[in-house]
């Protein structure tokens, strides 16, 4: 896809995020919006997946370790054709398959249940190990938050992945700089993120989370990297695309009211009109 097509897809995914969280009156818009371009590139360009066969054995896998940004994943999966976009408004409702955090048993396209921070990378490592054991060529991607790096299990998994030279594994850090209680470097700094992963024997790529040329280059470089897992540290803007949410920690886990929803959708329509 061209960058323009990717941008249009990402904007549609952002509208889906805002719509879902507004309908649910709960959920996490900030980190969903910051990762929307990454989700878009993964599901429209990078990953070998088939919406008509979500369980295809040889498919690439994705683990959303920062599971609270499920609205981003769900919106992406629906726009990519795994289930109808109209279902997004059932997010978090009793009886809906769209659980508050990713559930692999109920949602087509979700490869791993997640939500308890710090656990997704381990599961992704297990999937990458399974591919190696089977001599299969599928790749495994996992998205973690920068605040999530405070979980110790992330580093257990990183140590193991580096030790086992899992070059079929890509860990993407959504580095939006904010967590629920404030700036990550004020709460308990994870920086330097790149040096830490490098010390755990990862190939590290610093990039922008919102520039499709840079994202494309990063994933290409990851694919070409042999003998090491790759960590892509993607510098992002929390709430990206919605004017009043951008860079605001308050929008980590709060739903917009009707007025705010209208403004948010107008912001995204405005972006559409420039594409």
């Amino acid at each position, binding site marked *: 896809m061209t960058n323009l097509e990717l941008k249009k897809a990402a904007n549609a995914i952002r509208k889906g995020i805002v719509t879902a969280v507004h309908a649910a009156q709960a959920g996490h818009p900030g980190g969903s919006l910051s990762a929307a371009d990454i989700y878009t590139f993964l599901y429209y360009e990078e990953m070998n997946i088939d919406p008509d066969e979500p369980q295809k054995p040889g498919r690439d896998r994705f683990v959303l370790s920062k599971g609270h940004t499920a609205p981003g994943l769900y919106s992406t999966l629906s726009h990519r054709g795994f289930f109808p976009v109209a279902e997004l408004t059932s997010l978090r409702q009793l009886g809906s398959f769209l659980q508050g955090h990713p559930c692999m048993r109920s949602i087509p396209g979700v490869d791993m249940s997640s*939500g*308890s921070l710090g656990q997704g*990378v*381990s599961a992704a*490592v297990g*999937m990458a190990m399974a591919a190696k054991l089977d001599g299969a060529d599928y790749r495994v991607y996992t998205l973690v938050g920068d605040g999530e790096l405070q979980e*110790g299990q992330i580093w257990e998994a990183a*140590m193991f992945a580096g030790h086992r030279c899992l070059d079929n594994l890509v860990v993407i850090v959504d580095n939006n700089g904010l967590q629920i209680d404030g700036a990550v470097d004020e709460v308990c700094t994870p920086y330097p993120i790149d040096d830490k992963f490098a010390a755990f024997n990862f190939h590290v790529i610093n990039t922008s989370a919102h520039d499709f040329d840079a994202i494309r280059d990063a994933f290409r470089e990851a694919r070409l990297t042999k003998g090491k897992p790759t960590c892509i540290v993607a510098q992002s803007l929390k709430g990206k695309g919605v004017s009043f949410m951008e860079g605001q920690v308050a929008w980590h886990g709060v739903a917009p009211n009707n007025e705010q929803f209208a403004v948010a959708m107008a912001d995204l329509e405005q972006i559409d009109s420039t594409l």
Partner: protein
Amino acid sequence: METLGSIERNIMSEQKKIATRESYGNALVELGAKHENLVVLDADLAAATKTGVFQKVYPERHINCGIAECNMTGIAAGLAACGKIPFISSFAMFAAGRNFEQIRNSIGYPQLNVKIGATHAGITVGEDGASHQCCEDIALMRTIPGMVVMSPADDIEAKAAMDAAVAHKGPVYLRFGRAPFPVINDRADYRFEIGKGEVLREGTDVTIVATGLLVGAALEAAILLADAGIAAEVINICTIKPLDIELLLASAQKTRLVVTAEEHTVIGGLGSAVCEALAETAVAPIYRIGIRDVFGESGSAAALIKKHRLDPQGVFEQVKEFYNINKG
């Protein structure tokens, strides 16, 4: 003195004792031959958990995760999501205790086909002391929806439980011990099924429901009780979840007095499970033999078992006391 049946003869024979962690390692090797997708994960305890036996035969399918049990659990979840049958191994303290939330969220909730082989369960870890004596694992694992919890009584049952665990699709917790367990099920008519208990000895005065190491002690205690004029029925419950309520209820209705026995805290384990099951009918008073809400300490397994009254004499005395209070 009564005539001994084959089970009692087995229990009284001193030479036949095998630690169930040995059974675990041996069973892994046998199952590894039958199931190419079986993989074994350990956290730097391969020699102690006996997964090292598997590692020797199938080095490519043995994954040592280093001293990082939570990561090991997550890796197993990922492996299972890609079609493997992973066994994760560590001491019960870490396998169930440290890992509880990882097991609950990364294995239990997504119903992944991971088997948890926990060795060194209970107080008989002995000399290592309270930090390593896990008497809470059954309680923890039992609360996870869909988790099968098994606590084999001897080598034969441990191997049967391993076969059943692999045949079962979904998470299974298996509890093994470090101390030698008397072999009691070495008999032609032995059958194993997940969720089925077994009456090992019939009696009419009191039902002793035991699991794991305490099954042997309960059988020996029953012989002592018989000499004291009390006919004890002994039930072996290997599968604590799902519990064989039907069998327990039938026995309780007959004897109207139940004692549970386990090498585990009396809070949340077999004793609690039996109380929960029988409370709805209130057919019998129930006494729980086990670790009575205290931490352990260093000492030999035998000394600790004696101190906590989990040896045959201790079980005998506690059952007799309870019998005298209620029926004496």
